[in-house]
């Protein structure tokens, strides 16, 4: 399983991009997207997915 970003709610602040331990998040056409292949839900790195923990918009980084 992986996480995705709900584009309509994203504020495009970019905090998730530099918190992601897998470098799975990048800017594509003015919007951040999560590479589902690289995303590990932060298992083995942190207790909670970093994108979810840092995102200022509720329910914007969600499981696919």
């Amino acid at each position, binding site marked *: 399983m992986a996480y995705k970003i709900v584009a309509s709610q994203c504020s495009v602040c970019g905090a998730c991009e530099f918190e992601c331990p897998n470098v799975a998040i990048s800017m594509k056409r003015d919007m951040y997207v999560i590479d589902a292949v690289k995303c590990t839900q932060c298992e083995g790195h942190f207790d909670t997915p970093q994108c979810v*923990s840092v995102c200022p918009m509720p329910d914007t980084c969600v499981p696919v």
Partner: protein
Amino acid sequence: MANFVSLDNLLTPTSADAMRETPKTSGCSSSTSCGSSAGAGDLPPEVWNRIKDHPCYSEEAHHYFARMHVAVAPACNIQCHYCNRKYDCSNESRPGVVSEKLTPEQAMRKVITVANEVPQLSVLGIAGPGDACYDWKKTKETFSLVAKQIPDIKLCISTNGLALPDRVDELVDMNVDHVTITINMVDPAIGAKIYPWIFYKNKRYTGLEASQILHERQMQGLEMLTARGILTKINSVMIPGINDEHLKVVNAEVKKRGAFLHNIMPLISDPAHGTHFGLTGQRGPKHSELKALQDACAGGANLMRHCRQCRADAVGLLGEDRGQEFTMDQLPEEIAYDPSKRHAYREVVARERNDHVAAKQDATLTLGSADSDASILVAIATKGGGRINQHFGHAKEFQVYEASSAGVAFIGHRKVDDAYCQGGFGEDATLDSVIRTLDGIDIVLCSKIGDCPKDQLESAGIRVSDEWAYEYIESAISTHYTREYGALPQARRA
């Protein structure tokens, strides 16, 4: 060019009489304001030299110098109940709001463009729209690119403090001499009502624990800055019923830890902004409540009263925002820095300032001779330069001064929702709102006013005069005061 004292204006005559001969008819622009009212005489020379060109740290400097913010740091590590960073409106002026986010390279082009066109520019700040210390790579890269091109620009950041202790050494290395920390509490129980969560060391914290960590990091950051001699300003948002009384304690605590300046700002709370406080009906303070709290803090850390709560992409003097003139689509692809205008302007300001200081000293002497206990509030329409040089109908804000026999003191500004005169004719509905804005003011001094608005103001009990057009603010106020309340004959000045 709609700036406050244009370079042309300053390079020509600097006496008020000469200015009256050649009145400028530039378009609507507003005056200025963010700092200490302390001038050259009140501070050690070493400190004065560091703040004299910084509009936010020196009330006097804010009449002459401009700042710009570049919105390169959108990411934030905390959530505040007064902030909604999704909101973006070019008509809105408040911290955290921007119209476009910039890369460090774009920011550099923007700074150079502004430096070439706005000679008053002295300070580059990064104030978000997120947190400059958290979104650090972009902050650092921007400063390093700009400092290479414009070595004499002052670099300045604003932060919530959570990531600050990790960045202090690099701030020193980059010659960042001014740091602002937003501190709204020193008691986590109060913090819990302001901050729903923080993100720290890869974990989201909520409740008391979040505010405890934030508080400790803020105090640690402030102490580290003080130890390294960096001038630190503390911003506090006054939230009635939550931290209003508590800010007196905050003032004492930050003073104890070496803060140079304390800026107590009113909460901006509007449901349309979509912030938690806006949506839940938390109100902001009234003018009178803010002033009462600021007055109660007198004697503690120096208070800044000229803050305009500017946007994270503001450009210009504090009371004006020229950001819309410098959006990305208007910037050249390639641009070289041309220091000539900034240098010429500085020479003029150096001269003009000596004049202004002498005028202020005269004003203080004049008032000292006044035979009265009266204290009056005077509203000034100014485009900067410390002079009464704006048409009443063009003023987007009024600077408010208090005059008594103790002297003339700047105490704040009043914003006019929409400039009352849009293109030359006044509308009654807006004039009514200007009159409400001027509640409690005894007299308004401006460079010119029409008969009709003048009559309406006077029937509302507010006097207006354009007799002192282009004079220094303090000179005009002191002359008015002594004329009204009398001066001892031997001290009357020519």
